[in-house]
């Protein structure tokens, strides 16, 4: 059985990779991909704390369940907005979408 530290280090590494995706990519969709990766890394943390913590405390799992639902809603709305932006600007690159004023 791996230790809690190993799960937490792995989750920190995955979070940093997601952050790097958000900070370095130009395509809006890939920025959203980075955000999803960060959310997943946080979920791994929560489940690891549930597994290694008090067996009676179920809040870690429930929080991950709610987090997945929120991330699903976020992805749906985010991609709808990306498609709306694409229709108006004909691009999905961040630096070309400089003016959001109607």
């Amino acid at each position: 059985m791996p230790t809690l530290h190993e799960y937490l280090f792995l989750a920190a590494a995955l979070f940093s990779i997601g952050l790097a995706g958000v900070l370095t990519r130009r395509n809006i969709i890939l920025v959203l991909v980075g955000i999803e990766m960060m959310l997943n890394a946080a979920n791994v943390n929560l489940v690891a704390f549930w597994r290694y913590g008090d067996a009676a405390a179920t809040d870690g799992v429930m929080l991950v369940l709610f987090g997945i639902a929120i991330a699903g809603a976020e992805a749906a709305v985010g991609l709808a907005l990306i498609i709306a932006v694409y229709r108006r600007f004909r691009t999905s690159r961040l630096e070309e979408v400089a003016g959001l004023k109607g």
Partner: protein
Amino acid sequence: MRTAFILITFWTLASGLLAISRRNMIHCALALISFFAGIAALLFTLSADFLGAVQLLIYVGAISVLILFALLVTHDASRLGDRGAPFSRGKWSGWMLSALVFVVLGFGLHRVAVPPPPDPAPALPVAEIGRLLVTRHAVPFLAMALLLTAALVGSALVAIEESSEHARKE
């Protein structure tokens, strides 16, 4: 168990790095799917079976299809291969900053003492999760229902508004 964890670690780290570093965006999306599957495997090793199944259904099934769909819709044929710099100008500072975040997190984790795992994994059967959803977590559950409805209506609204604007222009 140990070998499985090491394999999954390399799997998720490799597919995560591929997902943010490939130039071809379809390759990025495919690596992302494998990243999501790796996360599901991690949840299985943590004996959170229900969450692993949810991860497979929602992320590997739904969100990756959504992302692939968005990539195909916004695909620009004139930029096939995406030669025009897929990374932003400040990419090096972005890499440095995320490496710094990892170092800070790792330094913090390094100093924390952790308990050994409870040997029989804490069991959380699906029936118990369902009971908790309608008793202890009933309010967040209802808020989630509201949020999902709002997200559904909101995404539909964004699409419909835009298409009626198109109709007015033409």
